[in-house]
């Protein structure tokens, strides 16, 4: 009995999230509850889950859940728990920072929060998956909820179009994952990552044809989900069509979960294959960096620009991904650090956008930001901080993220790739600083707006402080993690994968 309880304790956060999702679904039938209460309930469940994960992290030994009955399907280790922490925190912040936005739109209701929690459940399953079918199920649970969320504003044509686009393309690429799994199963006779790793290590390249094809197909699904070029066709339209909270969620939190499974595949199984996979990945990284930059430069709406830039940020992480197992010590922690860095900056930037659009403006173009520094001086400062961080300006966390990524590339001697990364970072200066220029360089034509002290604005401030602290944090102040600490935590978590 105690063994079962112990096992259940290990997956308790996931169960709580699931219970939360069902509770919200049931509650949403009652008109009695207001949106604010749904939000509160969702955050409450997530906070409990987060608290449990935090107590678990670093404390419980690595293990498989119900290994006797399920086999090595569901793993609990520090690596997965760290990604749990990241994604649960992500959802909490997404919910809280958008409180104003929810209020301003009529179409949000209880199911919205239920769907978000279902998606989080899928993401947690994904980061714990130690077997291909489980990973696929996790991925699809997460994705299906997001398909629905993208089209949540069902009277809006753009939103519905975005949903259709994402649904059709996403399902097709999901099929690639299944095909890849089938091929790998055909060769190995098992779908657990342990068995696949053993098989790959025991065989030569010429016997691994099926595995290589399968691995490539699986990578295609992953690349599609992170929006790498040439699988990026959906990104801009879908980001644009979605409500702000969902855009924010897809750009930052969902990407974290995708990288959780990508890193696990890469670290456990695909390292022996890197000679074959790396050239492909490098090629895609180059395309992603250049294509993303091109898309980002040409946009006039801020939301679309951020969508384009999210492609570029995926490209940076691909640089580090190709550096895994080729001499770089920092590659995996670098990706995790970058995910956090990008998460903070993107949530901050989208948070400000949603905060502004809560008070009316629908389209946010560069032009709309003219004179913003005079209308909203404080928000302008924070927006600048987020833009600087996204651009990788030193003294922000974005710079350290890029520093680690490029160091990983240099350690693996991918000098040309790093050079290209630096060039795209230079290009990105243009489209991020354009916003700063718009905010500060043009006179104000609209009337001054009063400062509103709300919860969302407090969180925006918190994000900005975290970004600065992450960029310059010293180890001189005890009890507060320094810029070093995140990397150390990530390294510890990666060791648990073994």
């Amino acid at each position, binding site marked *: 009995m105690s063994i079962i309880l112990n096992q259940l304790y290990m997956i308790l956060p996931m169960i709580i999230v699931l219970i939360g999702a069902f509770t919200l679904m049931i509650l949403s039938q009652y008109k009695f509850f207001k949106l604010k209460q749904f939000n509160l309930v969702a955050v409450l469940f997530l906070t409990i889950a987060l608290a449990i994960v935090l107590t678990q992290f670093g404390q419980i030994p690595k293990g498989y859940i119900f290994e006797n009955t399920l086999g090595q399907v569901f793993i609990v280790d520090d690596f997965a728990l760290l990604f749990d922490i990241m994604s649960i925190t992500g959802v909490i912040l997404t919910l809280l920072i958008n409180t104003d936005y929810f209020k301003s739109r009529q179409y949000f209701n209880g199911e919205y929060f239920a769907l978000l929690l279902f998606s989080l459940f899928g993401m947690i399953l994904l980061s714990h998956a130690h077997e291909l079918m489980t990973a696929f199920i996790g991925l699809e649970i997460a994705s299906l909820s997001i398909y629905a969320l993208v089209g949540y504003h069902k009277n809006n044509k753009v939103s519905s179009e975005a949903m259709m686009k994402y649904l059709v393309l996403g399902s097709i690429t999901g099929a690639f994952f299944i095909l890849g799994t089938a091929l790998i199963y055909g060769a190995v006779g098992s779908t657990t990552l342990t068995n696949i790793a053993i098989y790959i290590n025991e065989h030569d390249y010429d016997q691994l044809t099926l595995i290589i094809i399968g691995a490539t197909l699986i990578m295609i699904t992953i690349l599609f989900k992170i929006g790498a070029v040439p699988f990026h066709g959906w990104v801009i339209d879908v980001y644009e069509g979605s409500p702000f909270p969902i855009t924010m969620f897809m750009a930052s939190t969902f990407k974290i979960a995708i990288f959780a499974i990508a890193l696990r595949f890469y670290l456990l199984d695909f390292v022996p294959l890197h000679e074959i996979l790396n050239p492909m990945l490098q090629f895609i990284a180059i395309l992603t960096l250049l294509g993303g930059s091109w898309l980002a430069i040409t946009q006039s709406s801020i939301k679309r620009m951020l969508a384009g830039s999210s492609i570029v940020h995926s490209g940076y992480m691909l640089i580090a991904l190709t550096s895994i197992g080729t001499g770089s010590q920092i590659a995996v922690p670098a990706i995790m650090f970058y995910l956090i860095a990008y998460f903070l900056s993107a949530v901050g930037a989208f948070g400000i956008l949603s905060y502004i659009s809560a008070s009316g403006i629908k389209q946010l173009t560069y032009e709309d930001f003219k004179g913003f520094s005079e209308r909203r001086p404080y928000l302008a400062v924070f927006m600048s901080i987020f833009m600087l961080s996204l651009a990788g300006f*030193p003294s922000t966390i974005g710079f350290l993220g890029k520093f680690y990524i490029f*160091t990983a590339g*240099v350690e693996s001697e991918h000098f040309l790739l790093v050079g290209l990364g*630096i060039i795209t970072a230079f290009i990105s200066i243009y489209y991020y*600083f354009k916003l700063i220029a718009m905010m500060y360089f043009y006179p104000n034509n609209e009337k001054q707006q009063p400062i509103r002290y709300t919860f969302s604005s407090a969180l925006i401030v918190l994000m900005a402080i975290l970004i600065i602290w992450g960029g310059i944090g010293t180890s001189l102040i005890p009890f507060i993690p320094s810029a070093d600490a995140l990397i150390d935590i990530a390294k510890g978590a990666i060791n648990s994968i073994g």
Partner: protein
Amino acid sequence: MEQILTAIIFIPFITALGASILRLSHTNLRSVSIASSLILFGLVLFLIQEYDPQGGMQFVRILPWIQNYGISYHLGVDTLSLVLLLLVSMLMPLLYLYMWHEHRKGYWYNMLLLQSGVTGAILALDLILFYLFWEMMLLPIFIMIGRYGNSNRQYNATKILLMTMLGSMSMLFSILYLGYTHFEVNGFWTYSIDKLSVINFSPSIAILVASGFLLAFAIKIPLVGFHTWMAPAYGSSPTPAVVILSAIMAKLGIYGIWRFGYTLFEETLVRYTDFIIILALVGLIYYAIIAITQASLRRMFAYASGSHLSLITLGLFFANIYSWSGSLYFIITHALSSAGIFLMIGLLYKRTQTININSLGGIASQAPLFALFFTFFALSTAGVPGTGGFVAELLIIIGAFKYNILIGIFTASTMLLAMLYIFWMLQRTLFGSISVATQGFKDLSKKEIVMLLPLLLLLLITGVAPSLFVPSLEPWITITLESINQNIGGL
């Protein structure tokens, strides 16, 4: 005592932060800014008091920052950085005096942040830390040009931003490569320049690494070919920003070559000295000729400044004791005189709303004191005997003749060309008939005299009695030159 350098860097930053949190009114902001700049000036004077000219790097402070990669908070001061530090801390109070009636608070914040960034870049001895401050100081300049500048300011601000960033990015790549090579060779990561200086590259790689740095510095100076941002940016900057640009930030390019170039890849620099000398020589003459043709005072002195910075670069690359003393001395005197002249142009603009030479004239008859100061500063940029610029230029030209007689002749031509554009400009601006713009031209007020007098006196003293200053610069130059000559050995 240990924290003095940290204090010097961060006092302006903390002032700005505190003022923005407390939401001070602009008069209070002015008071605290001036107070902080005076405190800093006092601290720097104290630092000079304690500094030992023979002692190499002093007041060194190393704290771990990112331990995994050996990045540290590494500060230190030697004669070169002390000279620049003194210039910054001395100019700032004068600039605040110039900005006395400025009620836009952002202006003051940006100046405070600018001072922090510039000081940090001067004191940092860790490459990543240096990169941080190097970028940090660009941001206030970008905002100041774009927000408070004039004539096509948005475009010009973006231009200076992008060009400077291009240099910084290439420098970042070189920095990463240096760190990695050190890790490969010695087995641990570090970005401190004293440790990185031991790495030896093969010549073909060394030139690539060095050019990453040199691109950043060449754009900042700017050497000819990398200068397209210069005239527009100088033209549309507000006066305090243009003073900082020409008096301090351009010098930081020189400082970079001196500090990082001559420690990290001195062999490469010596090997390619001739190319850079030719580049600087072309710049020297080309900028001077362009300066003659300019109609706007700002743009004219922008090119004049470019020409003189090329001269400092030349002095740097002749790499002998005369030229180095001259260059270091010229850094001081050029900062003083260009600060003076750009402040005067700012005052002129306040009075006439134009800086177009053709629409000026007849100032001398209405405002003799203004004309006197203006003439003095203009002549001091050209290096007229009796001003500090003359001593410095002379030393560099002696160094040039010592290097090569032909190059010496070309270098000496700068004095002639400078006279040409300065005197012609003076004639058209100060004398002649009174134009519409200069009608009722007010003479200098007391506050303005207080602002300009220190610069004028210092230029006179440096010109008349160079023996007061040069000996305290020399020990550092001798030591540095010797160590370079040892390192490059047979070359």
